[in-house]
């Protein structure tokens, strides 16, 4: 079957159609028509994914469906021949990702159709939204299906562009556009890093004798990569370093930019000024999902790169912790959720770091479900109370929006990892257990402690959201009439319902064996996700199931969730005074957290301000104007002017007598020279 190519092609074609309508013909379709086109295309992709999936798990199938469209870039001869195949590979990992992306993608698009219809902030901008969303989804699908590193990089860049435009959808608000632009520019660092990662592997393989396109070949060549070395720069101490390590470090840089991991996490918390549907896409299945997918895809590379793996784990855990803490203090509900995303993705990278890529994928799935769900739900809430996003101006909304309240609850329980029937619960379980049993990591104990604290803080922050918004006393703005508050329209409700179902049902695909053994009687291969993905990933870490201590870590994880959730309820609903006291006690911390640890300004200060200062003050006004232009253009002109206009000109006195004198002087020289020459 070669229909795999249509999975990314359908949304991309939709994007192209929208783009032509807007950008060339200047026609805007209504939200309903434009949405229908996009939803149709994504749903078609979903359908194709399902068909392909069926084919993949069917009895006669091979381990992947490869759809080779052609060669994209073919260049060079011999061992350094570069072949970039436009080739799609529907293997288990890609299958999971496709289903997830198209599934959650269609749901969120349906939601957006409902959400955007009443939006009066942008006149006739709906089609633009669907154009960007189609592009984003198409690019993401291409990314997960790409069977070539370079193609993946291309898709990765495209995801970055689509994210930029989607997050900057409300382009007339300068602050939003600014945040989106920052996200994009940071992403370009990641793109560059990926190109670098590819380049080092390419040359390592070319020197070793052969470079072949495709991830399968790359995976087979991983011993070569581990054996080949590069030199560290001198200022990093020198010495050889395996190519795998270098490549993984570069990949990690790309991951950090795209997934908003520390220290490049600031943009994620700020880029919330977009329609909720866009946030759902960005925060669940596309932008922040791509890094996890990439790390999983390259798990064979990480398996050979202990340093980079450890760095990934530490990056993940610190981000998880910091993100969770920051989200505890935020007032803007969307900002809470955004920081929580960073935190959740951080968990996944812990899994990558400890060599449990399946757990990372499962965490991604869980995150997609429950974060999508709560974003939609809170979007509905916000829409209901007149676009008010301040948690302290909500309260008791659950009594009016009772259908929404169910969805919020399901999401909260999953995120807080508090209920053993939710996807989130099992995902966290797996990560904590995997990290717990892998004691080879440097700073293992601290890492585990941070991980568990992060879990706790996550639970706290998410419960805080539900407590402040749906319970307690109402504090809604006076402009909103309480009586008219009601649940959103059917499109939104149904999409939320779908995600809620997935949040619950998703648990079934990735339940750890030991939990399955506990909960059910005899299920073989309970973690079907893990088994399904096994051909696609390389799990460096040992299987945690049978190991001693697995249960203790599992228990701790469950406990920590509850330990985080309950105090939140208690504090925010029962003891507001105590809350205020605590807040004032740790005012410095609270203020810091409220400002997102100043991570976003730090990015500006670290990356942009120095560049501008260097460029503006030193180069443009210093080097360029003074040295280069001064020397080459003005300088040469001045030299010529002074030569000609100065002393050379003063020799032309106009006096015939002096001309004769000059002639005689020259003649004297001529005479001396000729006499001298004639003598010998």
């Amino acid at each position, binding site marked *: 079957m070669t229909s795999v190519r249509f999975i990314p092609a359908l949304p991309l074609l939709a994007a192209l159609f929208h*783009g032509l309508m*807007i*950008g*060339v013909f*200047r026609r805007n379709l209504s939200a309903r028509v434009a949405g229908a086109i996009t939803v149709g295309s994504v749903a078609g992709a979903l359908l194709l994914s399902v068909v392909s999936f069926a084919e993949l798990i069917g009895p006669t199938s091979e381990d992947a469906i490869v759809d080779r469209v052609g060669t*994209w*870039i*073919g*260049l*060079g*001869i011999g061992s*350094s021949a*570069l072949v970039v195949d436009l080739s799609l590979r529907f293997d288990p990992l890609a299958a999971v990702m496709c289903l997830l992306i198209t599934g959650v993608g269609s749901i969120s698009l349906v939601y957006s159709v409902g959400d955007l219809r009443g939006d009066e902030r942008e006149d006739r901008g709906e089609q633009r939204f669907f154009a960007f969303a189609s592009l984003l989804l198409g690019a993401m699908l291409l990314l997960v299906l790409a069977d070539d590193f*370079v193609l993946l*990089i*291309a898709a990765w*860049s*495209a995801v970055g*562009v689509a994210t*930029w*435009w989607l997050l*900057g959808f409300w*382009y*007339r*608000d*300068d602050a939003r*556009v*600014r945040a989106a*632009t920052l996200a*994009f*520019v940071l992403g*370009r*660092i990641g*793109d*560059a*890093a990926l*190109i*670098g990662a*590819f*380049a*080092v592997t*390419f*040359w390592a393989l070319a020197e070793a004798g052969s470079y072949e396109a495709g991830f399968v070949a790359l995976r087979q060549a991983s011993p070569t990569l581990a054996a080949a070395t*590069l030199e560290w*720069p001198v200022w990093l101490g020198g010495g050889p370093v395996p190519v795998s390590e*270098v490549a993984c470090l570069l990949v990690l840089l790309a991951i950090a930019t795209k997934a908003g991991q520390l220290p490049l996490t600031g943009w994620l918390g700020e880029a919330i000024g977009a329609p909720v549907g866009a946030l759902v896409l960005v925060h669940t299945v596309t932008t922040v999902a791509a890094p996890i997918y990439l790390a999983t895809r390259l798990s064979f590379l990480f398996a050979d790169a202990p340093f980079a793996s450890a760095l990934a784990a530490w990056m993940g855990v610190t981000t998880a912790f910091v993100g969770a803490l920051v989200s505890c203090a935020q007032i803007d509900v969307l900002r809470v959720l955004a920081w929580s995303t960073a935190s959740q993705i951080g968990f996944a990278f812990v899994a990558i770091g400890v060599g449990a890529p399946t757990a990372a994928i499962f965490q991604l799935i869980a995150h997609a479900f429950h974060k999508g769900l709560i974003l939609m739900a809170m979007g509905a809430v916000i829409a209901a109370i007149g676009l008010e996003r301040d948690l302290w101006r909500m309260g008791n909304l659950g009594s009016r929006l009772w259908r929404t309240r169910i969805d919020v609850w399901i999401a909260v329980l999953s995120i807080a990892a508090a209920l053993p029937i939710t996807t989130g619960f099992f995902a966290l379980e797996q990560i904590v257990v995997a990290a717990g049993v892998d004691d080879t990591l440097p700073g293992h104990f601290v890492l585990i402690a941070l991980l568990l604290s992060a879990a706790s803080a996550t639970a706290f922050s998410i419960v805080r959201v539900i407590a402040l918004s749906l319970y307690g006393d109402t504090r809604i703005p006076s402009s909103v009439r309480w009586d008219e508050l009601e649940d959103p329209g059917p499109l939104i409700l149904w999409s939320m319902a779908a995600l809620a179902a997935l949040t619950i049902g998703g648990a079934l695909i990735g339940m750890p064996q030991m939990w399955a053994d506990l909960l059910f009687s005899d299920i073989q291969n309970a973690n079907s996700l893990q088994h399904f993905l096994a051909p696609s990933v390389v799990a460096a870490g040992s299987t945690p199931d049978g190991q001693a201590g697995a249960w203790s870590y599992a228990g701790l994880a469950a406990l920590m969730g509850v330990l985080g959730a309950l105090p939140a309820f208690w504090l925010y609903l029962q003891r507001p005074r105590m809350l205020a006291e605590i807040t004032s006690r740790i005012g410095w911390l609270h203020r810091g957290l409220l400002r997102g640890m100043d991570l976003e300004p730090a990015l500006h200060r670290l990356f*942009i301000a120095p*560049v*501008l200062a*260097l*460029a*503006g003050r030193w*180069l*443009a006004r210093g*080097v*360029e104007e003074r040295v*280069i*232009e001064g020397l*080459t*253009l003005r300088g040469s002109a001045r030299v010529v002017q002074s030569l000609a206009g100065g002393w050379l000109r003063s020799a032309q006195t106009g006096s015939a007598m002096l001309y004769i004198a000059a002639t005689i002087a020259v003649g004297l020289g001529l005479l001396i020279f000729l006499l001298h020459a004639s003598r010998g």
Partner: protein
Amino acid sequence: MPPQIEGHVLSWLIGLPAGTALALLALGALHHALFGARGLPEVIWRLAGLFSTTLTFALGAVGILADFDPERMGPQLVEFVPWIPSLGVHYFVGVDGISLFLVLLTTLLFPLTMLASWKQVDRSLRSFVLLLMFLESGLLGVLLAQNTALFFLAWQATWLPLFFLIGIFGGARRVRTATRFVMVSALASACLLVALLTVSHLSGAPGSAPLLDLATPPAGFGPGLLDSAMLDPEMARGTSPGPSWLFFAFVLAFGLMIPLVPFHAWLPDALGEAPVAITALIAAVGIKLGAYGLLRFALPLCPQPAAQWAPALACLAIIGILYASLIAAVQTDLKRLVAWWTIAQLGLVVLGIFSLEVHGLTGSVILLSSHGMTVAALYFLVGAAVERRGTAEIVAYGGLARPMPVFAVLLGLCVLSAMGMPAFVGFVGAFTIVLSSFSSGPAVGLTALAGSVLAAGYWAWTFRRVALGPVENAENRGLIDLDWRERCVVIVLLLPLVWFGVHPGPVLRRVEPSVLELLRQMDDRRMAPLPIERFERPDRGDEFELIRLDVDPEPTS
């Protein structure tokens, strides 16, 4: 196997624009003589110019592409007419993979420039059209010439129209800018002439007509420069100038035009002051000739010093990329911003050229075309904006997506192309160049990549400040969006950018053989032991080692 005349399409290409211009002049004179009018009406000039340039493009696209054999190395579709045989000057034109797409780009840009400047030129329109046509002929001559004298002639014939175009139609400081431009061009020409003459002197057998043909001319006209293995390092002995010296003459000549970074000061000025349409031509085609010259002359004629100095020049290119990108980041004027970006891009091209490696060289050729189309599209868009608002200052804009959505979308696409995003052909070029730069170590490659990050930074920032955000400036509120003429001009440029970005195969397939041929020539002439014969130089009496010409220069390996 000497090439024979393989058709006249290239001559038509070169002759059509200038011929049209001359015909128009003659008709105008006739008109003047018969009816006493001041010349032909301007609209006839404009239409005839548009028609002729379009025809040239069609001729190029159909005539060349149809007969161009991607598998063949060396110049194709050659036409050879002895012109001044005693001087070794022949009318010898041909096209190969390196020049093919630059030729197509050139022919494509001229009708677009005509269209884009439809409303921008309000005086001396006849001169404008006339100069444009001469410019096109000159540019095509440079790209197609296979004889160094012809090349030099066309090279010089190129900058004169540009001088007038800048000086007559430019901005406030146009005269100064035009003068600077002409000085730089003259200096470059001087270096080039020294180098070309020396090359032919060192290659030719004493007493015979000087060797000026690059490729092998038909039988009876001696070997081509590339057939005669002359510039052996041994030649450097004595007072005769050696190849290193020559190489630097070439590098200086072409580096001034490219412009390589310490010699770049004229470009932002020229691009900032020239009329926007001409700016597009200068940036898109004019300065490409520098890089083309490096590929055509500096590398194959001086392989040894090229290999020896390639790391240093690559280093210079990288410094240039970073430097230009950083300065671009603080520009306040759109035209100058594009100019600085251009310098950075050309730095990337030079980096690719001096990778001396098939990826980098091919990437450079591709990036040249890609940059040409992108920069032209950008300048056309800037021109449309300037036409409406009268300024290119970035602060004057903001929020244009609201009144001019088509403009914003097209600008956004151009900006993406400028950043080297995938799905634009610029990615293919930049990617392969960067890839090849990694072959000399990750540090080099990563530094080169830093330039692309900076480019993303300032382009995204610029796009935000021009197209996004609130419409703060009241003058921007009522701006009229691009009309169909303007849209088409940009879209026509974007289409190949995207098409070849997605499907670069046809380009690569045609470029790569020529690049391989270039590398082969370099290797042959660098490594093969050369048959050397001693003889007395008549006028000095010193002994020189010269390479005998009648020996087949096949490598003996």
